[in-house]
């Protein structure tokens, strides 16, 4: 490389504007025996960096890590059992659900990998449990939110209408449990033309 080229690249380098290939070019030049002495400082710097690049974790340390990992268990999926308890009014409901789910979980689990997959049976069961919990939460919250509307009347095929997402591009306001607020919310919802709310 010609020294003018090097100077240009170095200028870019110090501006943080070089690409990785350009940096490799610079390195190749500066570490070569024929590098111009005016770049001695850079050559030195790149030399140190090149050595740092080659550094590896000492083998003894790597072995130690291997052994430690063999004695460490991965986190189970199911970490926070209390997570779903303190969820307002449905706490009681979830408590019961939890008891039911636990008895399922306690079935003898063989620890062999489920054929053809990365997971043991115990892990798969834990995942089922976690998923159940999460979906139960979602479902319960959904029901909690839509129940009050049902009290005031029948939402015609609400769930189907909910799938009709055109209507829901407008803002759906917060639905509070207080009954006085509910009628305001219903007015709001009624304004969404595709909804048909029949008040009995």
């Amino acid at each position, binding site marked *: 490389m010609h020294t003018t080229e090097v100077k240009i690249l170095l200028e870019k380098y110090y501006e943080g504007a070089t690409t990785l290939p350009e940096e490799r070019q610079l390195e190749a030049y500066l570490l070569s025996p024929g590098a111009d002495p005016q770049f001695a400082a850079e050559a030195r710097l790149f030399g140190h960096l090149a050595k740092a690049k080659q550094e590896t974790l000492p083998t003894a340390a*790597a072995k130690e890590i291997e052994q430690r*990992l063999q004695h*460490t268990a991965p986190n189970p999926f199911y970490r926070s059992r209390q997570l779903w308890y303190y969820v307002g009014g449905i706490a009681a409901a979830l408590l019961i659900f939890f008891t039911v789910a636990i008895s399922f979980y306690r079935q003898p689990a063989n620890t062999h990998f489920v054929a053809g997959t990365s997971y043991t049976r115990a892990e798969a069961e834990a995942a089922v449990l976690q998923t159940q919990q999460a979906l139960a939460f979602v479902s319960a919250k959904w029901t909690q939110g839509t129940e009050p509307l049902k009290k005031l009347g029948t939402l015609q095929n609400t769930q189907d209408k909910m799938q009709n997402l055109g209507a829901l591009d407008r803002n759906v306001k917060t639905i509070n449990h207080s009954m006085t607020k509910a009628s305001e919310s219903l007015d709001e919802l009624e304004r969404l033309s595709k909804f048909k709310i029949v008040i009995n």
Partner: protein
Amino acid sequence: MTEQAFIDEVLPHQDKIYRLARNYLSDADSQDVVQETMVRLWQKRHELPGYRSIQALAIVIARNMCLDKVKAKSYQNSSLNNIAEPATMHTPASALETKDEAALAHSLISRLPEQQRIIVHLRDVEGLEYEEIAAVVKMNVNTIRVNLSRARKTLREAIIKQHNYAYNGS
């Protein structure tokens, strides 16, 4: 992920973590950071498929650990003592040479402000693309460039000072 997947995809980041830690800590402490980082990732191994970049996660965990350790032990950035220490007896000769000269790089980099330190390390030692660096430091590419520029200039000044080179401006 399975044990094998961990071995194939996560363990290879050990060296990277080690080299990073050496910009903050002594050899021994750096080895600790690597171990603790790998243990943490191992414990989380079932969640790892949820991460876009395991490399970024590993580096973030390690960096945080380094910062905590530095704070706890009140390391002094300007001290060469801990970082450029002589190699141990059990290291083969060629590795010794690498280690010593690598230590020179680390001691220079360790004197940079932390943000510049990690950025110049990820770029100039690890050769990461800007997007990969951004995944770790959570800055936009321009800010990374600015930090990189400052760091490189500082390193050059340090080298010049260290070796008293006659430098005829550019």
